[in-house]
Structures are given as structure tokens and as C-alpha cells.
């Protein structure tokens, strides 16, 4: 392989590091109206009246919108496949506000100062309602968060809004109770994971204008341009053909931009005024009024025989989706479907529970997507099982984990929102990941060393899997177009949000065509220009969009050979194309020359091919994570000394970018494990609404990350590739918790693991 498996620089890298104007707000027309949103100060209230007259009268204000001015179409902001697995429970502006930060009214003015002034002039009269702030008490509470009678959801979502249930899921294989009964050793524990904020560095941003054909154009910092177009069409009552969505460079997403946020507000303002309009969320708005990770509670029961063979896993979950049901069902299902198959030798397995509404900021998609939550619970419980069995936790995994060419019945039963697909795991180097990781961290020695002193070291581990796209649902497409100089435009709906997908997709095209990657000019994404792609989520781009690019490039190769055959007037099987030249026997022509001929001289035509791909399977990447910590027993402070991650992501198309994906994922997982927590006061007001109070790990906190990618080849992936976007985030919470237990013998079962929790546990232990 020449272009693939090469650590080339990102194609857009120079533009980014040299600060070129490439992000949404850099590009917004200077005369855009500035859109500001008035947000609810109450966790739950009904708007009795809004007086907009003073705001409207303010010089420079062009438009004020309230719930009376918006189309009454319930929709979901979640950017997912269609029909949507999230309930249709949101208006653009509603008479009810369901969390502190929910949208009340919209102001557009000629500049920011005026818009902010106008917000203060809005007079709102609220009927304050009793909020539901504890997700464990939401189900069946007297307060109903979605009392509306036009609430809708697809049948398979099983929502029950009258009981505050956004979604429910149940599955069961085998005789769960019987197997628990028969087990020699049983672990039964409860775990909690917290709400986590994405904290992508670029806040949510969008602008809109009307084009020369009277169509609405939205430029947005989004992960899902095609879903944005579809959702806006529904919310705004516009035909899809009247909307164009363009995604420029995006300053990070991590799931937080897998939804619409500011788009409908700028769109409405543009539609009302005919003028360009832009919105740029403040960091406070990003925290208060976009998304968090779904906080979850798990009751895990594991039964094993005395030799460490696991017979049964039973998981009851409860998930908090906040005020709206975005990604409610699917994150919950992924909690089961992307963790449980790792233990595929069980005789019985059960997973189920509710996803409930509360009056907190809505939860949504976030890298790891349910899997990290359940990984913490199950991989912590596995550690507890190992100690109870008096068995090395590594050995326990080795006995029970999935291996290459094996399967799990869960693949078929659980998909995302719907049934999954049967598949055999064609590539799985999890065993190698576990073994290599243990060596790298020096597990043998460190696990067993005597633990004494005021500062104590310990090691812990966890294993993880994810998917590569959503099988049979998520489609990606790519178009290649030959230029007269022999270069190619690669038009992709796949959405580069910093991940480097433009680069690796170009590498895939170049590899197939046998041309240098520099000959490929990628462009993503624009719903008018690029073919459909679901977008950047579910770890799909490399695998799904990558396969689409591969297909498009293979077709292009055929087209070039066909054109060569016509040129030489021979049959196609006499023609060869090596990336530079087209040859028929002794005769040859360069690609560049042939392209020129095709443009201007003979048999003139545009060579252009499109490939589409939808996964028949979703091959999981795997990894083993090993943490080494040092615990200060007098203060509870935990230092993460080293984190070893050994990952099977198939062929890394670009080893540098793949590795950085893992490193970035690890840091976010470490953040969730040790530092980050969305906190509210007793009235539902967000306390962590800035970066001083919401702490993501800093450069000094991340000491050593040691990432290795093992050799692996996924036969269904482009050049053997699987995904790598999410897997890195999954293991740190459990591995770090397990390492702390190894060091000082205390088990923290709710995230994040703060010094305070560790110290309290140490005192209790004494």
C-alpha cells in the first residue's frame, strides 16, 4: 500500500494552523443580523404572556420571535437516521419551557449590543411549575414534563410521556434467574455515571441567508448537514429542495453537534426579514442550552463459576435524557449492545430499563454514546468479580472475552433503535491488545506489589468495543470527478469536524487509483453539491464513507480504462491504468493528456462516478486500557501516572491521525473519570456553566498516554480499516477506578472519582 497506512499531514492542516478564516463565524457576512436567544430562568414553567413591544421598539432591532410566531410542528433535534428513533417532542419555540436555558424568545438586531439590550426589554410572565430534578424519581411523578397532545414517536421507541418515559427497552436471552442461582460467585452492584459536557472548543455557530433562487442557505458548525436539512424542513414546513446546508471547518463536535441547535433560529429570522442572520453561542449557552452525556444508573449482576467462567450478566439501567428525548433510546441500547457482546460465552444475558425525562438540560449524542457509561459499570463489576474469585483481572478477561471468528447473539437482537444484524467478528485482536497492554504497563509486577505508604501506586484495566457505523441504516456516498489536469475532485457528504476524514478519504481514493493523495481534492460537505452521507457519528466515517469512496474510486478506474479503450480503439481488457498512464500494448497516454482530450478534443465527456455504501455489518474496533495511578492517602488525590491503550482499529489509514483520535478520546475519558461533572443547584440551575467550574483535563493533568495500534485487518473495511473515533474514550473510567482499588482498596462506584470521594471512602474503610 502506498497512500494508505501513511502518516501524511492533514490536507486542511496548514489552513487551520495559520488561522485562516474557515470556521462558521469567520465566514458570516458582515451585515448579518445578530441573533440572541432569551432563555428560561425556570426549570419548568408555562409562559403566560410575553410582551415584546419594548424590545421591538428599540432602534436596531429587526425581529422578535416568540412561540406565537413559529410553525407548530413537533420535531426532534437529534441528527439520526429516518424514521427517527428519538421522540418528536420539541417546538422551535414553545409555550412550555422545560429546563433552565430552554428557548423562550428570539431577538435579531443589527449588532450584538443592541440584541442583548433587546433581550433585557422582553417582559415574560411565567407560571412556574414543579420541576422533576431527580431522575430516579421521574417515572410516574406528578409533574409531567411533556403533557402536550401532539407528542409523537415511532412505535419502536416505546415512549410513555404521561409517565415521563422517553423510551424503554428490554431484551433477554436464556434463563437469567436460573443461571444466577447456579453460579458459585455472584456480584451485584449499583453504579452511576454523571452528565458530561462536550466542550468542543468552537461553540455552536450558524448563519443563514436567502440565495438568488429564493432558497434558504444555512452555514453551520454541524456534524450532520443532511440531517440538519431534513430536520429543518420538518420544523419550518419547507420542502427539502428549498434548503441548502453547508458545513465549513468545524472546531470539534464529539456528538454535541450531531443535532440542530441555533439553526432554526437564524433560519426563521432570515425567512422573516429576508436578511442574513447569525448566531454564535456563548460558552454559557453551550453549557446550559445544548447537550450533555446521558447520566445513567446501572444495577449489574454477574454470575460465574469458581473457575472464573462467567455464566450470566444482568444489567438494569436507568437513563436521564433531560428535557427532551434526543438520542434517548439509542444511547441506552448502545449501553448494552456495545459492551455485552465482549462477554459472548455467557449462557444468559439480560438488559433493559427506562430512559426518563427530567427538567435538566437535554442529553444527547456524545462520543462513547452509552457504551462508556455501561463500560464503567460492567468493567468495574468484572474487576470486583476477579477479586472475589481471587483471580487476576487480566486472566478473567482472557477466559471470557470474545475472539476472532466468534459471534454474539446480541448483534442480531440489539441494533440502534431497532433490531441489529447478525455478524461474525471477522477481525478481533482483543487478545493481543490485552496481552500487549499488560506487558507495557508491567502488570505482573505492579498488580501484585505490596501497597503501603502515604502515596500508593496501583494498576487497573478494562476492555472495550464500539462499532463502525450503524449497519443497514447509515449510508454514506462519495463522488469523484476527473479534472482536465488529471486531478480529481472528491465530493463527500462525510463531515470532517477536525477528525481528518477529508484526509483519510482522499488517501483511500488515491490508493485505489494509484495516484498521490495530493491529486485528490476533497470537499465536504454541502447538501447541494456533495452526495448524501449521514454525517460524522457512530464511528462511521472511515468504514462507511471510506467504503463509499473506495467504490467510487474503483468505478472511476473502470471509467478511465473505458475511456482509454475508446481512445485507443481497443477492447477494455487490453487496457491498463497504473495511476499515471493508460496503456494498450505499446501505446500509452498519460492520465493528464487523456483528461485533456476528454475535456476538449475527442469523445468529449466528464468522467464522474459515485459510490454509496451501507454497512451489512458494523465491525467493532476493540481495545484494552491499562491505568497506573498514585493515590495520596491523606488527601485522596489521584495522579494518573500512565495510561496504556492498545487498540485494534483494523488498518489505520493514516497512523498519525488514528493515534491522535485515540489520544484525544482517552483524555476525554480521563476527564469523565476524574474531573468533569455537570452540576445543578436545587432549583435546576446549572452551576457548571463556564470553564472555571466545569473542568476538562489540562495539559498538566495528562501525564503519559501510551497508545499502540495492533496489526489487524477487517476484510469488509476499506483496505482493512475499522473505526477509531470513539473507542478511545471508553476504558478510562473503569480502568482508573480499578487501579485505585488495586492501590488502596476502595471502590468508587459513581463518577467522577474526585479526591473527596476517595478520601471519604478511605476514612470509611478504616
Amino acid at each position, binding site marked *: 500500500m502506498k497512500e494508505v497506512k501513511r*502518516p501524511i*499531514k*492533514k490536507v*486542511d*492542516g*496548514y*489552513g*487551520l*494552523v*495559520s*488561522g*485562516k*478564516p474557515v*470556521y462558521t*463565524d*469567520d465566514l458570516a457576512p458582515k451585515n448579518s443580523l445578530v441573533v440572541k436567544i432569551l432563555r428560561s430562568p425556570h426549570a419548568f414553567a408555562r409562559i403566560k404572556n410575553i410582551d415584546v413591544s419594548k424590545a421591538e421598539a428599540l432602534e436596531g432591532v429587526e425581529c422578535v420571535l416568540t412561540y406565537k410566531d413559529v410553525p407548530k410542528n413537533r420535531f426532534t433535534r437529534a441528527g439520526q437516521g429516518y424514521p427517527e428513533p428519538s421522540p418528536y417532542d420539541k417546538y422551535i419555540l414553545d409555550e412550555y419551557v422545560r429546563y433552565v436555558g430552554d428557548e423562550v424568545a428570539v431577538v435579531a438586531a443589527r449588532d450584538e*449590543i443592541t440584541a442583548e439590550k433587546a433581550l433585557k426589554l422582553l417582559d415574560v410572565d411565567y407560571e412556574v411549575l414543579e420541576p422533576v430534578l431527580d431522575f430516579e424519581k421521574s417515572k410516574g411523578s406528578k409533574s409531567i414534563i411533556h403533557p402536550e397532545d401532539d407528542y409523537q414517536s415511532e412505535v419502536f421507541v416505546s415512549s410513555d410521556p404521561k409517565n415521563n418515559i422517553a423510551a424503554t427497552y428490554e431484551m433477554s436471552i436464556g434463563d437469567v434467574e436460573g443461571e444466577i442461582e447456579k453460579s458459585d460467585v455472584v456480584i451485584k452492584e449499583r453504579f452511576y455515571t454523571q452528565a458530561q459536557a*462536550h*466542550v*468542543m*472548543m*468552537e*461553540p455552536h455557530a450558524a448563519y443563514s441567508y436567502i440565495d438568488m433562487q429564493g432558497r434558504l442557505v444555512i452555514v453551520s458548525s454541524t456534524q450532520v448537514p443532511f440531517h440538519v436539512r431534513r430536520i429543518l424542513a420538518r420544523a419550518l414546513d419547507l420542502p427539502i429542495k428549498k434548503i441548502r446546508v453547508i458545513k465549513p*471547518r*468545524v*472546531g*470539534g463536535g*464529539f456528538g454535541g453537534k450531531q443535532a440542530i441547535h441555533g439553526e432554526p433560529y437564524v433560519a426563521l429570522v432570515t425567512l422573516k426579514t429576508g436578511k442574513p442572520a447569525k448566531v*454564535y453561542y*456563548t*460558552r*454559557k449557552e453551550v453549557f446550559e442550552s445544548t447537550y450533555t452525556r446521558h447520566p445513567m444508573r446501572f444495577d449489574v449482576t454477574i454470575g460465574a463459576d469458581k473457575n472464573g467462567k462467567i455464566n450470566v450478566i444482568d444489567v438494569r439501567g436507568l437513563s436521564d435524557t433531560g428535557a427532551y428525548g434526543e438520542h434517548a433510546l439509542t444511547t441506552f441500547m448502545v449501553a448494552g449492545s456495545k459492551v455485552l457482546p465482549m462477554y459472548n460465552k455467557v449462557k444468559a444475558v439480560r438488559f433493559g430499563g427506562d430512559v426518563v425525562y427530567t427538567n435538566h438540560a437535554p442529553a444527547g449524542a456524545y462520543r462513547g454514546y452509552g457504551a462508556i457509561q455501561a463500560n464503567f459499570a460492567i468493567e468495574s463489576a468484572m474487576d470486583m468479580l476477579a477479586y472475589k474469585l481471587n483471580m487476576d483481572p487480566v486472566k478473567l478477561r482472557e477466559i471470557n472475552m470474545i475472539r476472532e471468528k466468534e459471534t454474539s447473539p446480541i448483534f442480531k437482537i440489539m441494533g440502534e433503535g431497532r433490531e441489529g444484524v447478525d455478524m461474525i467478528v471477522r477481525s478481533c485482536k482483543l487478545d493481543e491488545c490485552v496481552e500487549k497492554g499488560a506487558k507495557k504497563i508491567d502488570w505482573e509486577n505492579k498488580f501484585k506489589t505490596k501497597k503501603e505508604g502515604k502515596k500508593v501506586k496501583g494498576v487497573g484495566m478494562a476492555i472495550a468495543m464500539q462499532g463502525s457505523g450503524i449497519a443497514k441504516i447509515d449510508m454514506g456516498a462519495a463522488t469523484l470527478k476527473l479534472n482536465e489536469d488529471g486531478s480529481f475532485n472528491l465530493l463527500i457528504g462525510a463531515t470532517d*469536524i*477536525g*477528525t*481528518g476524514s477529508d484526509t483519510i478519504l482522499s488517501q483511500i481514493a488515491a490508493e485505489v487509483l494509484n495516484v498521490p493523495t495530493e491529486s485528490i481534492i476533497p470537499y465536504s460537505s454541502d447538501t447541494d453539491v456533495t452526495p448524501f452521507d449521514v454525517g460524522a457519528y457512530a464511528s462511521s466515517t472511515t468504514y462507511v464513507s471510506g467504503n463509499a469512496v473506495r467504490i467510487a474510486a474503483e468505478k472511476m478506474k473502470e471509467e478511465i480504462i473505458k475511456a482509454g479503450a475508446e481512445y485507443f480503439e481497443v477492447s477494455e481488457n487490453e487496457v491498463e491504468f497504473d495511476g499515471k498512464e493508460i496503456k494498450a500494448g505499446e501505446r500509452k497516454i498519460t492520465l493528464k493528456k487523456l483528461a485533456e482530450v476528454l475535456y476538449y478534443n475527442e469523445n468529449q465527456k466528464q468522467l464522474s462516478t459515485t459510490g454509496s455504501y451501507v454497512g451489512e455489518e458494523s465491525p467493532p474496533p476493540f481495545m484494552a486500557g491499562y491505568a497506573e495511578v498514585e493515590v495520596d492517602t491523606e488527601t485522596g488525590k489521584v495522579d494518573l501516572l500512565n495510561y496504556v491503550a492498545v487498540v485494534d482499529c483494523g488498518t489505520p489509514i*493514516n497512523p*498519525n*491521525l488514528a*493515534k*491522535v483520535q485515540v*489520544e*484525544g*478520546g*482517552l*483524555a*476525554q475519558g480521563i476527564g469523565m473519570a476524574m474531573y468533569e461533572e455537570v452540576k445543578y443547584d436545587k432549583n435546576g440551575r446549572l452551576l457548571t456553566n*463556564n*470553564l*472555571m467550574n466545569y473542568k*476538562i483535563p*489540562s*495539559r*498538566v493533568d*495528562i501525564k*503519559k*498516554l501510551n497508545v499502540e495500534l495492533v496489526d489487524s485487518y477487517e476484510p469488509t473495511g476499506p483496505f482493512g480499516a475499522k473505526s477509531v473515533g470513539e473507542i478511545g474514550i471508553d476504558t478510562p473510567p473503569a480502568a482508573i477506578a480499578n487501579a485505585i482499588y488495586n492501590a488502596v482498596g476502595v471502590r468508587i462506584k459513581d463518577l467522577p472519582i474526585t479526591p473527596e470521594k476517595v478520601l471519604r471512602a478511605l476514612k470509611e474503610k478504616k
Partner: protein
Amino acid sequence: MKIILTINNVKREVEISPSEFLLDVLRRLDYMSVKKGCDTGTCGVCTVLMDGKPVLSCSVLAASADGHEITTIEGLENDPEFKAISNALLEEGADQCGFCSPGLILNVYAMKKELKNPSEEDMKKYLVGNLCRCTGYVPQMRAIKKYFEVKA
């Protein structure tokens, strides 16, 4: 009110309001490399050099920058140090979404002038105010260490 700013060696007279921050003024003047990430002096994406020292442009009142020299990435494009730092980042793939990159590069640029033979820990502490959510910092530090080694 009117102030004088020397931005990337070009002297400009700029009309500002007394409550405006330097960040907003710079973006208004099309220095789009200066980003806005947090409003509370924490993320570092708004970093610029003021008289050669890194500062948070979101926290400097434009009025107090009157008479000072401001450097943004736009002003460093032909500077060999900029080329070396940015190339080191690109070679490691340490530019993911890139939103933190201009601010980080400016701070590395200043660090190079200020610290002699810094340890990795010294560097991390100097750069701690440049948050990055994409890379986990490690690839950035690999690149920055290489840059320091080559140049040392």
C-alpha cells in the same frame, strides 16, 4: 473613542467603545485567527501577543491596549519560527479541529523566547492555559518537544 493599535507591525487608528474587549475589536478588523471560545479567560483560543507577551485578548479591554503592539498569527506567516512550530504540529497530526492551534502556536512562540532549556513539565505549565479538547495534548507536546530539540 479612538485608540492606536500596532497590529502585526501596521499602525492603525481604531474606533472602539470603552467597554469593548480586544478580541472583539480584532475580529471586527478581520483578524479571524483570533478565536472566541469561552468568555471567561480560561480556554486560551483568543491568545495574542501584546508587546511580545502572550495575553488573553478576551480579557484585555481594547482601551488598555492603546499604544501597544499586537501580534496575531496573521502577522507570523512568514516568520521561520512560526513555520517550524506549525510544521512540527502538522507532522504529528496534532492539528485536529485546529480551533486551538493559532492560540497555542502564539504561546509556544512566546515560550521559546522566554524559557531556556525548559523541561517538558515547564512547557506544560507554560502552555496550561491553552485548552485542547481534541488531541489529549500528548501529540501537541510531542511536536513542541521536537520543535525545541531541533531548534536548540
